[in-house]
């Protein structure tokens, strides 16, 4: 009799422990982001963050505010994926983010060149 009761108790305990998936995290990683390792994704994230800071300092917020905002959101998406352990997704998000940053940097480079020229030349450049 004791054996039967023990078997039922152990079986019940096992039923209660197995169905739940592991605890998730990284859903708001941008709020408390700390670089705590040097994985490839972390390095890329850091570079992207620096690029975003540079672009903002160069006035990208005035010239292409929407693009900057979209890039920021993409950065958030990438950091969440990285922190959440979605390595493959994070890689894809980072690729996309880096493409965005490359385009924005190219645009800002042209704008800086144009701004550096004399006014008369600027007018010529603007002419179709």
């Amino acid at each position: 009799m004791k054996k039967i009761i023990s078997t039922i108790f152990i079986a019940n305990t096992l039923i209660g422990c197995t169905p739940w998936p592991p605890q998730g995290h990284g859903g708001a990683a941008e709020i408390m982001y700390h670089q705590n390792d040097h994985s490839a994704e972390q390095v890329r994230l850091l570079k992207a963050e620096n690029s975003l800071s540079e672009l903002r300092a160069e006035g990208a917020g005035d010239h292409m505010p929407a693009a900057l905002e979209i890039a920021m959101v993409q950065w958030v998406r990438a950091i969440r994926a990285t922190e959440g352990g979605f390595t493959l997704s994070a890689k894809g998000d980072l690729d996309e983010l880096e493409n965005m940053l490359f385009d924005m940097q190219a645009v800002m480079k042209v704008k800086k060149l144009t701004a550096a020229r004399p006014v008369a030349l600027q007018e010529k450049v603007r002419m179709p």
Partner: protein
Amino acid sequence: MIRVLLLIFLIGFPATSYGEVVEMFRPGDMLSLKIPGEAAFEKPFQVDARGRILLPEVGYVSVVGLARSKATDLINRKLGEIFRDVSGMSIVIKERRQLISVLGYVEQPGFLDLAEFATVQMAITRAGGLRAGAQLDKVQVHRGKTVIVFNYKQYLDTGNSSQIPNLQTMDKIFVPASPLTGNVEIDFDARTLAASGDASDRDKAIIVFGEVHRPGSFAFKGSNSIVDMLMRAGGVTRYAAVDQIRIISNGTPAPFNLRAYLDTGRQDLIPTLAPGDTIYVPQIVEQVQDGERTIRIIGAVHRAGRFDYSDGMSLLDLIAVAGGPKAEADTANVQVLKSGKNRVVKSIRFNLKRFLTKGGDLSGMPILSPQDTVVVPELPKDPNDNRSQWVRQSSESSIYVFGGVGAPGRYGFNEDLNFLDILSAAQGPTSNADLRNVKITHRKQGKPVVTYIDLSRYFRTGDEALLPKIAPEDVIFVPQQNNDWRDLPKEKSVRILGAVNGPGRYTFDDTMTILDVLAEAGGPTSSALQNKIIVVSHSGAERTSRSFDLVGFAKSGDFTQLPVLRAGDTVYIPNKEEGVWNIAAAALRDAVSVLSLVRLASGL
């Protein structure tokens, strides 16, 4: 001796002969007769028009055509019959004068005694001058049976005396009246006469009539151009259709565009005139009779109707003749209907608005031909009034706006308008419009292409790069926020199932967290198992499940506990009954029940 005789012959004979020729008497000559001791012969005697002189006591003696010697013999004989001694008489021509008749359209026609070298002009002046209405280019001089016609006006113009004949005594000058004076004698003034033209010969004149200040028949000179003739007719009036002047030459009309000539100065536009041609300057009219050379313009112009076509008439010319487009004209969609073969009409669309504002190649403008029809469509007076007139608007020039806007419908559109223009025309988005998911269907890109625009982001950043380029026939759809969840694309939403107050599909983007979604779904119910919320990720490369302890998060405030949530994921909030202890308790209850049954069975 012979030489002396020869010399005497040579000197004496020619002298005699010459004297007899030059001193032949003619009418008008003033003869001086010298008879010593006779006072009655001191005054000269003039040969009258009949060739006679009137001698005292003798009467008329005809001397015309006689040489001086013969005349002297004749007079000597006549006088010898009355007077005792006339042997010492001599006759000399004291002065040669001309007896001229001036007749016709002069003030005082009559017989004049003029000096030897008097001219036609002197004769006319002595006759009191020309009368108004005299035909100057056909003045005649009658000399015996010969009539000399000469252009007295040309002489007056040039001063060239070779243009007029030298007068001879007994000439008769006749000044004819202009045919324009008519058959009834009335008083004319010079201005009236000039106004009626100056031509005397209809076959050689140019007739100018219509919208000129002084229509008439004008003498044509070879160097005269049509502009000269119009000038002589006093120029065109302000009602003249100067681009539609017609020249009828040998019964064939030909158009002449004076405006084009004045605008360009091209001499090749000037037609060659010939004597007998007729120039007609028509009046500008709103409508002309139907004909092979008419062109029609209808729609939103100030004077729609049928107009005369002139060679080289451009679309701009026609619209200008029609008074220009009205304010409400849709000049971006002007149509030219051209009649082709087999009565097939071909339509050519032209964006006049862009041409007028931005310029362009004139060769790109449709070329007009007679019998064409130009249609200038009308824009709705008010964009909101669009629906009442949409049937008059072609779909090629329309754009469609549906959903959460103040006035959905079909709107007139051209390439100069942009997305915001159309949205404004539709009275903008409504208060519950879902600005983040405005959808544009591009129908003219070969295959249907749908683009999304986050208007909310545009209003937040002001970045024009977000606004899509739209084209005619595109469809703009602004969804409502309370739209059916099935219309939400799964790439932009998350599903929430289980113990929440509002399960369903909710819009989600990467700026949101699981907390936002739970809040939007009304939060977990009281029976929810809040420490075991499950997030099923199947939007990215990995497909996994994670749990979220809402209660634990609320207690700790640790944001690192929030699971990653992406659009496309599913959130499931289990019920408390699905908790571990509930399951275990249920299992235990079942086990006890089974044991009781086993015990009962064994006791039996």
